[in-house]
């Protein structure tokens, strides 16, 4: 009798486990979701204007206005972007050129043009965990994380901000990726319908919560290619309580951008 009860219990447990597996996991893998999300953010070319609001732990705020240009390398998903500061006056004309290099063994390139020095400088340590022009976003957060450098799992599906979402857990594939990104874990809330991310929770190398990124105000900027862009991006460092909000006032997909804009020579000629 006792034996039978245990068997019954084991069967019940196994059955409960099987039905608890999410239905969608059988149709779309975690990796596929991550890939669709990565692609959703790859916009062929754009021009934009944005306001950066840097907010300190005690609520003091600093505003910087920028204009931006971006374009994917031809035949590649690697992005190139140029950000130019418009205000405040003392950094006006400062430009930052970011070139993503996905070939193995190559680092991303970051160049900065300082008008006061009238010289371009190459930022040598272009680790993805570095701050993106002094914001709470890292370069990695802005450029995006290559799908196969992370191991993805769907932890659950839930409604977030009124949208059906996958909650994707991404763990660095190796220690190098972990060190370079500065994250031991990422949790992303990805919309089921268009695969844009709405929120990310990022954990530091010790596994403690480090940042929360919220993306909102999504607009379809390229209907033909089903591309969406978040017009409001917010990154909050939970450890320092520092916060950055980037708001796009203008965003336009444009095919007219020349490739030579994204070269160090262009920066030098811009003075």
């Amino acid at each position, binding site marked *: 009798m006792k034996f039978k009860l245990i068997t019954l219990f084991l069967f019940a447990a196994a059955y409960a486990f099987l039905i608890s597996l999410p239905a969608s996991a059988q149709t779309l893998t975690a990796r596929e979701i991550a890939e669709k999300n990565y692609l959703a953010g790859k916009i062929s070319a754009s021009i934009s204007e944005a306001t950066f609001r840097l907010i300190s732990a005690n609520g003091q705020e600093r505003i910087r206005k920028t204009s931006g240009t971006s374009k994917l390398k031809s035949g590649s998903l690697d992005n190139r972007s140029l950000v130019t500061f418009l205000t405040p006056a003392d950094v006006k004309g*400062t430009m930052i050129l970011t070139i993503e290099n996905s070939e193995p063994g190559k680092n991303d390139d*970051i160049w900065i043009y300082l008008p006061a020095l009238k010289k371009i*400088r190459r930022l040598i340590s272009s680790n993805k965990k570095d701050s993106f022009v002094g914001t709470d976003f890292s370069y990695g957060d802005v450029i995006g994380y290559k799908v196969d450098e992370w191991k993805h799992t769907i932890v659950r599906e839930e409604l977030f901000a009124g949208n059906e979402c996958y909650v994707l857990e991404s763990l660095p594939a190796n220690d190098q990726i972990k060190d370079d990104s500065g994250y031991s874990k990422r949790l992303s809330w990805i919309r089921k319908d268009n695969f844009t991310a709405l929120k990310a929770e990022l954990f530091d190398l010790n596994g403690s919560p480090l940042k929360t990124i919220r993306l909102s105000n999504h607009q379809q900027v390229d209907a033909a290619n089903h591309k969406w862009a978040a017009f409001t991006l917010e990154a909050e460092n939970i450890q320092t309580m520092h916060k950055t909000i980037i708001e796009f006032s203008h965003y336009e997909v444009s095919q007219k951008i020349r490739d030579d804009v994204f070269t160090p020579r262009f920066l030098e000629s811009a003075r």
Partner: protein
Amino acid sequence: MKRFIETIIRYRKLTITLNILLTLFLISQFRHLAIVVDLDTLLPQTHPLVAATNKIGQMFGNKLTVAIGVTATQGDIYNQRVLGKIQRITAGVMNLPGAVRSNINSLSSRKAKSISGDADGMIVRPLMEKIPVNPAGLAALRHAVETNPVYSNLLISKDRKTAQIVAEFKKIPGGFLAIQKNLNRVVDQERDESVLIEVGGTPVFLALLEKFSARMGFLFPLAVLVIGLIHYEAFRTLQGLILPLVTALMAVLWALGFLGMSGQPLDVINATTPILILAIAAGHAVQILKRYYEEYHRLHTEKPSMSLKSLSREAVALSLSKVGPVMLMAGGIAAIGFFSLVIFEVKSIQTFGIFTGFGILSALVLELTFIPALRASLPAPGTHEIQREKAITLWDRIALAAYNAAQNKRKQVYFAALISIAILSVGGYWLKIDNSQKAYFYGSLQEKQDDNRLNERLAGTNTFYILVKGKSEDSIKNPQVLRGIEAIQRFLEKDPLVGKTISIVDFIKKMNQAMHGDDPAFFTIPQDQNLIAQYLLLYSNSGEPGDFDAYVDTGYQNALITTFIKSDGTAFVSVLIDKVKLFSNQLFGRDADIEIGGGISGGVALTETMVREKILNILQIMAVVFIITSLVFRSVWAGMLILVPLLAAVSVNFGIMGLLGIPLQIGTVIISAMAVGIGADYGIYLSYRLREELRKGGDEASALRRAFQSAGKAILFVSSAVAGGFGILMLSWGFWIHLYLGFLISMAMLVSSASALTLFPALVFHFRPKFIFEERLK
């Protein structure tokens, strides 16, 4: 008065019930009592240093800095074992409740970055992301640390033997003891033979303050016991032991209840105040009890036919009608004196005044209602008890000796008084005012030794800050302002006790050097504001947004110069602050101005306020005593003579402090107020009794002697009980504040009772003022 007491006796059951109900109600008010260990309660809030401290707190966060030193016992710290400890302690501290994560600085914190340069530009990297695994890595780390002078003496000592973790903490529930306990848990895991670990800084000492103040839990009952025993020795009766203590304890309970209702917080410095209330309340109770026994004995002899119970009740009414008004006057004067301390700017002293004032008023109410009702309900004293109380003891002999001195050896009394006042005034000349918090504690305590060693090896565990306020956003990037900041830093660093200064300038100079291929010739402030702004932007590409939060605000309108100091003596810091103010005057022109505050500057503010307010405070209480005494006796003479024992007690207090090198600080500053408050009672009780006995007529000498044997003897009882109760505090090992209070109050009681019993009556007998000798003059 007599009719009032008779009513109380008639409705004694109701009176007792009402008193008990009131006591219960007041005990229920304890729930509103906030007990705080808050430095703010000790600081004069409108003092410029304190105002600046608050401003700095709002802009840059409140700074309570803990310093943890890790010293290698062999070789230097550049080895994996010691670096591993530094990394683990840093990570551990980072995760503690109350730790300000963004302001933890150590070789392994993210905040500590190396700025260097090469042909391409500036390289910004955390000093030590991972512990180097080979000699080359260790050498590279050493190079990075040593080429960033901002970390020298702060994160690592000049001899490379000690590394320091500097962490900032906010207050947490459970107080500083909880912070210290958490810190010890992190640090203790890393202690072994390879390192010495020392923990220092303000929070450690605030934790000690909490710990030692909690000793009142057993010191108070001990004081109660000692006061009770002295009363028992004095009266030799059980009622003499118990009744004054009942009044005293209830007065303490009532005062705590009233304090809760008033919303005034109870701070650590006021933890000793219940003993004062206990002592004063017991003192009044003793005067009345003494009189009760006298009256009872007299009635017993005069009306042997009366029942003992009625005799006792009649004695209660008589004693209170005679002593009650005196008690009301003496207690009223003291209470007004203490309440008048609310004009003090320091919250802690306000609390002290209100608390003690409530305590005295409570004692008066209890002595006029609860105690007569209770005594009338208790069985009358037996003959045996009366005989024991009446027995001639040492107390009588002292009282009579005092009478003889005042009457017959006046010259000697004056001479002795003058000599002692002269000697002690000389001592007062040496009196130093210093609010060093660390000086509250014995040098032999582990915490003190740790702190001293950290001060010897590194920049210093004490800080204060210079806030440079620019006119508008980005003012701080102005090269002129930056040069001014640098000039202040170099000026401060000339002082041998200043271990280090840090500001945004240190980083900007390093950036400039990095951008010029690390050429040391460019370790300077650039000339162009835009260039400075762009360097900072460039830095921000590799740093983190909060990296400079401790040095500039978000808008670059205000900057902070942190000064590390090896001493927390306020006398020294006060001089330094004045010098900096003078130096930086005109330094910035119209671009910026400065304010100084934070850290140990609070002690300076306290010292400066105390000098002024202390004198004011003593004068104030004396003025209250003078005015009310003059009014009540309708004689200015009375007011002046009453002040004599008080002046003696105060000057002896300051004299002894000067001679023994006891500093005047927040703990000792209230002693003279206590001495005056209690001392005034003696003169008043004695004066009334002298007048009363003289009014009875008869032989003047025996009338005066009788006054000495009753009121004089009671003064001896009271002063010994107060001295004994406070003397208990001297048992509090490690904590100078308790020791000073115990010793100085005992001394003050000795002096004020001695002068109330010799010098005061000598003057009275000498000048024969009308307010005492009126009947004789007629």
